[in-house]
């Protein structure tokens, strides 16, 4: 019992720690630096502690310090409670969605089985979609409670866009669920033990569709119509200052990680290495019985998982800095008229392929 509690606490600490204190701030830095590289610039590099700058990593720290001590502003006429709650409502779902994502396999450590997922739900896929759709409330409330026309417009755009893509996003995954015959992300990962069973092999169209929906859901360029600077000043968070403002950004960054992690889990084999199974890796270090072998394998798997996530994050950032922004009605048209029918067609194709045996059952 105690061991299980400790294990869960450790896993929660790991997941949230990874997200909030590593990924979110570092992503801010990565985004800055990657844009600098793509744009032939140097990028932030002056902030120093005792003369060390570590290629500008401390800028994230100075941003945080400044934002914490920035005046917290609530405009007149705003709904104070909603205005304050909105950033949290936007950030929390993004974090919670991470709880069902397995970042490793199952390991025997000193007679205790460790399953590297915070909550192994049977309906993990549904849980992720259910929770991430809650993020829309934070955004809509932010737009509505600010008593500002630009915020209002941004909130409306965000609401329409997020709900539309929610629908399409759920459907893009259905083919994959049929293929793995499970809604549990842990099972889905477990079934991807060989390279041929990775989701991307058979389901690359679903990947493209899902990735599009996910970026749209996250409101990043090219789908950033709700916060389009040149149109709506800053969209739904126009009236936010200091930490509340940065919480919307952190929500966005955490969501980037979540999207990448989900893609890894569903399409890129999760923590699995390409040519060696979990059991094979543990055996290579000395067999199932050895706690050291299990620990080593665990470490390698977590690193593999994180590396895969980083590659997909990088991919998202590249898109972010390359494409211009969609017009709002084009975003909606793309969602309803292209992605949704395409994912329905894909479900149909998968169903036929599974029935006829053209696609092997797992």
């Amino acid at each position, binding site marked *: 019992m105690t061991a299980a509690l400790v294990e869960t606490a450790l896993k929660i600490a790991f997941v949230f720690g990874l997200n909030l204190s590593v990924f979110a701030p570092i992503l801010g830095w990565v985004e*800055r630096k990657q844009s*600098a590289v793509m*744009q*032939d*610039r*140097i*990028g*932030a*590099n*002056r*902030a120093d502690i005792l003369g060390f700058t570590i290629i*500008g990593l*401390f*800028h994230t*720290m*100075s*941003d*945080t*310090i*400044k*934002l914490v*001590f*920035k*005046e*917290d*502003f609530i*405009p*007149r*006429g*705003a709904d104070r409670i909603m205005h304050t709650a909105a950033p949290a409502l936007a950030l929390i779902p993004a974090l919670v969605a991470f709880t069902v994502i397995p970042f490793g396999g199952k390991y025997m450590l000193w007679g205790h089985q460790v399953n590297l997922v915070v909550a192994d739900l049977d309906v993990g896929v549904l849980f992720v979609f259910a929770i991430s759709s809650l993020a829309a409330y934070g955004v809509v409330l932010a737009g509505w409670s*600010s*008593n*500002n*026309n*630009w915020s*209002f417009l941004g909130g409306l755009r965000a609401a329409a866009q997020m709900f539309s893509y929610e629908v399409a996003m759920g459907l893009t995954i259905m083919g994959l669920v049929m293929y793995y015959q499970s809604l549990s992300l842990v099972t889905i990962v477990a079934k991807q033990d060989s390279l041929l069973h990775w989701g991307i092999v058979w389901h690359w169209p679903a990947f493209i569709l899902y990735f599009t929906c996910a970026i749209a859901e996250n409101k990043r360029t090219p789908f950033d119509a709700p916060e389009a*600077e040149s149109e709506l*000043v*800053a969209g739904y*968070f*126009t*009236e*936010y*200052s*200091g930490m509340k*403002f940065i919480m919307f950004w952190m929500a966005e960054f955490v969501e980037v990680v979540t999207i990448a992690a989900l893609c890894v889990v569903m399409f890129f084999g999760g923590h699995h290495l390409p040519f060696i199974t979990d059991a094979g890796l543990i055996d290579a270090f000395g067999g199932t019985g050895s706690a050291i072998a299990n620990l080593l394998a665990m470490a390698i798997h977590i690193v593999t998982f994180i590396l895969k996530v980083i590659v997909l994050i990088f991919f998202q950032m590249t898109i972010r800095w390359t494409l211009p922004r969609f017009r709002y009605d084009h975003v909606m048209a793309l969602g309803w008229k292209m992605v949704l029918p395409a994912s329905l067609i894909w479900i149909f194709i998968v169903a036929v392929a599974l029935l006829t045996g053209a696609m092997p059952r797992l």
Partner: protein
Amino acid sequence: MGMTPEEKALGDSVIFTQLDKVIGWGRKYSFFLYPFITACCGMEFMSVAGPRYDLDRFGAALPRFSPRQADLLMVVGTISHRQAPILVKVYNQMTEPKWVFAFGACTVSGGMYDNYATVQGIDTLIPVDVYVPGCPPRPEMVLDGLILLQEKVAAQKGQMSYAKGMAPVGEADDRIITGGEDSI
């Protein structure tokens, strides 16, 4: 700025002077700009933000067009009398702490334009922290001005004690007006 009650009470206690340094360090490398661009200098501002001079190196690359999120009001270009109320309004809408950067001769003193239409320096309207003359100033000068401002910000005392909406200029009501026809 004067001494606030907190400052008088706390004086030079070690914790607060150290905290001042830390906050000063944070603020120094994290300017979110509000580019109030009106005229010719805006073209040089583009260059400063561009790849060759790269304002981002100093941590000041992120323009926020919502005054609530900005720390540094960059007044870039001539301010006409017609524009002046808007400048003051944007200044008042910014959240504390905030600084003002006078970019170019027109904002410093009116520059070449001394006639019925132009404001003779924005310091007649709002407090200014750094003056960068030039018509338009070269990017190097702008960077120099920014570094001077960084030093000024880092050395400020009483970093903790910015009151809410400390110093509205003109009509105090400007600050909280939002939405509707008056929002920018």
